[in-house]
Structures are given as C-alpha cells and as structure tokens.
C-alpha cells in the first residue's frame, strides 16, 4: 500500500502540479483562407506569473481564442514562441487544459466517464477512480454521475466540463469564454465558483472574455486587445481581495476606464 502511494507520487499524478508560468514572446499568427493570409495576432508579448488570474479582453472575433489555442498547443504560432515554465510549447499536454465556450461533453458517455477521460487517456483511471468522484463533488454534480450530457442544463454541463479539466490537476487553466452562453444567474454562480476553484487549486488561469465586469470580478490583471489583427492595447491591474462585488466603487471606476479603452464610453 505504502509502496504504491510512493509510485503514484513518482508519476506526479496525485500530487498537485501547482501553477505554471507562461511566456508569450513576439507571437504573430495568421490563418490560411483559401490562399489568402488573414493575420489574427500581431506581435503579442505577455508574461503570466505562476498562480496569476489574467483576463484577455477584446472585441469578439479579434483573435483572443486563437491565442488560447496556441498556448494550449493545439496550433503552432506563425511567428514567435510560447514558453510554459521556460519550455517551448509544441503539443497539447494535460498540465495545460483548455475549457471551451461549449461544454463539448461526449454525448455518448455518462458524466462520470466524461470527467474520467483525462485519466483514461493516461491509463491511470483504474488506480485513481476516486479523483473522478472528487472532481464531480467539487462542481456539485455527484448526483448526476450516471446521467448523460443531454439530461443536463447548460450550467451543469459547463460545470461538468470544468470537472473534466480539473480532474487532471492542471497547472494552467485556459478558459475560452466558458460562461459566454449561460443565462445571467448561472453566470453569477459559476463566476463565484471559478474564483474559489482557482483559490483552492492554485493553478494559473488565463480567461478569454468580452464581458468587462466578468474580467474585473475574476482576475488580477486585464489585458485589452485591439480589433483583428489583435495587438495588446492596454493593461490594467486590479488587486482587490475576493469575493469582489460588482458595485464596488473601484471596480465601477475601472470598468468605465476599460470600456473607454475599448471605444465604448458610457
């Protein structure tokens, strides 16, 4: 029993991965659209400290999501380099998990199996079944372990998708407008949950959003992007203890400031 526990630790699967530093250095990216080149990212430089919660804010379609795909390792940047803890990113890795705007749960598998996918991929599921149960408990879906995705509401499905990410104990969580399609009440609940999950697990978080208030409620640094091709337009720091309140005077002031930067004065 003891020997087994040591072995598990040696795999690095049961111990927390902690948090990850991300270095984006001079990254430009373009899409090939039937021959013509469409530039989406232009010369992005961004350093994210381990454990930081950074929001990427910008008009929709500006290229923020593309940047997350590059950091996840799903695509390679046309120019520049992205480093994770000093190592160049070449391919996806379970230490860097991307959560999409759609829950993209596998409709043919139960919620439990969906959440277990990451462990199954690495062949450690048999040994670490309890981690799936823990992840489900973390997002309050224990009762729905045997349900199929179509039986869940939008908010529950997105929580399941978060559990599927968290079960891997990621050092970096990439959130691509994860609350974008939810109704406003569910959004509020999940925003609070996201903060507490981040505080509890200590991962680094990169959140793409076009909701200024959401960025201010969740993150300590907000990067504002321009229209496509996206360049970094401005950067705001917002060091306020959590939980934050949307009517907080500093928050309201900064929101006005950010909206002005985005060209939307109110």
């Amino acid at each position, binding site marked *: 029993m003891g020997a087994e526990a040591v072995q598990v630790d040696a795999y690095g699967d049961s111990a927390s991965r902690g948090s990850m530093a991300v270095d984006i250095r001079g990254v430009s990216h373009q899409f090939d659209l039937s021959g013509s080149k469409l530039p989406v990212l232009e010369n992005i430089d961004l350093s994210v400290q381990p454990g930081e919660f950074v929001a990427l804010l910008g008009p929709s379609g500006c290229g923020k999501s593309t940047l997350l795909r590059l950091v996840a390792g799903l695509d390679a940047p046309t120019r520049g380099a992205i480093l994770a803890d000093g190592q160049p990113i070449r391919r996806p890795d379970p230490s860097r998990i*991307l959560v*999409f705007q759609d829950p*993209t749960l*596998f409709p043919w598998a139960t919620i439990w199996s969906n959440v277990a*996918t990451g462990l199954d991929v690495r062949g450690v599921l048999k040994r670490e079944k309890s981690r799936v149960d823990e992840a489900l408990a973390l997002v309050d879906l224990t009762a729905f372990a045997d349900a*199929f995705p179509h*039986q869940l509401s939008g908010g529950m499905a997105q929580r399941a998708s978060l559990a599927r990410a968290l079960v891997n104990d990621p050092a970096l969580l990439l959130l691509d407008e994860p609350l974008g399609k939810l109704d406003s009440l569910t959004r509020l609940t999940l925003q609070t949950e996201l903060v507490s999950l981040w505080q509890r697990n200590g991962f680094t978080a990169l959140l793409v959003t076009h909701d200024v208030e959401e960025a201010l409620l969740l993150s300590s640094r907000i990067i504002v992007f321009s229209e496509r091709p996206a360049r970094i337009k401005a950067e705001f720091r917002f060091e306020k203890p959590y939980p934050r309140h949307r009517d907080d005077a500093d928050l309201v002031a900064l929101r006005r400031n950010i909206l002005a930067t985005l060209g939307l004065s109110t």
Partner: protein
Amino acid sequence: MSDAIRAFDEETVEGSAVSQGLWRDGLLAAASWAAAALITVGLPDVVPWGSAELFAALTSAAAAALLVLSFIVHRLGRLGGGLVHYGPWLIAVGVWLALWELTTAKFGWLPKPFFSPPHGLLNVYVVDGQRLLICIAYTLRLWSLGFLSGIIVGYSAGVALGWSKRFSYWGMPFLKLIGPVPATAWIPCTFYFFPTTFGASIFIVALASGIPVAILTASGVGSVSRSFYDVGHILGASNWYLIRKIAVPASLPHVFVGLFMALYYSFAVLVVAEMLGAKYGLGWYVQFQTAYSGYANVYAALLIMALLCAGIVRLLFVVRDRLLSWQKGFI
C-alpha cells in the same frame, strides 16, 4: 416524447374499447375470424387447394380464443393492454382472410395458379414443410456468413476511409465507382475467383451489405465534430485513442443507417446469390417453383422471407436502441 403520445393513445383506445370488463373489439375480431372459418368450410373450392379443414380449424381456434379474451382481457395487465392496442388490426385481419377466401378459392375471381387462397399457402407449409425448413436453414447460413463478413470488412474500411486522408484519397474513388454497381453484376468474376459457388454467393451478399456500411461509416467518422478531437488532444489522447473512444462512438448513428440499408440490400440479392448452383435455400425455392408455375409455393416462400427480414430488422432495432440510448435527447 413519442412514448408519451403512445401511452396517451393507448389509454384513450383502452378507455373506449373496454367497458365494464368487456372488450368490444375482441368480440368483433372473434366474429370476423369465425366468418373466415365458416366461409372456408361452408363454401366449396372452385378448384381444390387442400388443407381447407385445417385452415378452418386454426381460424376457429383463433376466434374462440378471441371470444374468451374479450371477457378476461382487462385482467391481463400489460399483455392485455398490448392486445387491446392491436384490436382494430385483429378485426381487419379476420375480414381480410374472409375476403381473400371469397375472391380466390370460393368465387374464383382471382384464379389458380396465379393466386392462392390462405389455405392454399397453408397447404404448401403442410405438404412441403420439411423442404422449406431446410431451405430456411440454408438461406440463414448464406445470409449470416455474407452479411457478417460484409459488415465487418465494410465497417473497417469505412473507419479507415473516414479517418485517414491518404486512405480516403486512394479508396474513395473506388468506393464511389463500385458503390452504384449492383452486387449481382460481379457474378462473372466471382465464378472465376471463388473455388466454390457457395463462396461466390457469400461474396455477392457480403458486397451488397458491405458497401452501404462502408460509405455511411466513412461519412460518419468524417463528420465527427472537430471540437471533440480538440478535447481529446487537449487531454493528451493518442490517435488510436481518438479513433476508439471518439470517432467510433460518435459515428455510430451513421453506422446504423448503413446497417439497415445493408440488411435490405442483402435480402434483395439473396435470391440471385442462390441462383449460383445452390441446391437449397429460399431464393432457390422461389426460382424453382416459378419455373414450374407453383405460385402458391412462391408466395409461401416469399412470406417466410418477409417475416425473416422483418424479424432481423426488429432485432437490429433492439441493438440500436440499446447502443444509442444516449441519443434519446437528440431524436
């Protein structure tokens, strides 16, 4: 949704059909079946067909059973509910049998040998039952060997075609070219390539069932949403994992459409496949009897084929509903 509607329908049918423990449709069905029995023995055949007494005995037994059921059906629970649901059909079948007897054997409007009364078909089963049973066994052997080998090869080819760009580059043109050609057109080559005619027959059935499965599996695997693969990649999945755990289950709805098509095609070519030097088999039986104008025998064999096909379709539906229960929210 459809279940709810059906339950509702059943309730209303039951409500009107069963009153004070009496099943009215059951009584009417008993009457129509008794009429069929009476017509069969009461009126003489224009040309004798045989087995009229046996048919009358069977239909009167059915009528008697329906009469008893009319009084006790409300105590039979689920089974009774099912019977009540099919009450109108039971009446219609009795009426149909009676009219069938009248138009063929009794009045001769639809003459021998082109048409056969129901007791003429029954007579075929009585007289030729032994041979028909052997034919069923032969047909099922040929069909199951051909169908199974066809769908296994077709499915594997379909997954490869849908997954691999290179495989699809070389394979798809062939599949598109061969697909529309009727499987039976390959008979000349199969005679050359297969040492036995039985092997050739299996190949024809396998080809007919393999092609629709291959085409639909390929399109199913090809149309799996990219975001599912993205999720797999993010979690560190290998290609083999993506195929097994994402492409295969995600394409299953398409695969089942292919399987249903394969089933019908394979039955359609069965008759032709059994032309190839077979000594037994339902297809062979149909051709043999057609040549001798034994049309009653032809109908009798066709009826068996229809029932076999319907039974296998039913079985496939059960398998599909079991494997695709996760789809319920979508359809």
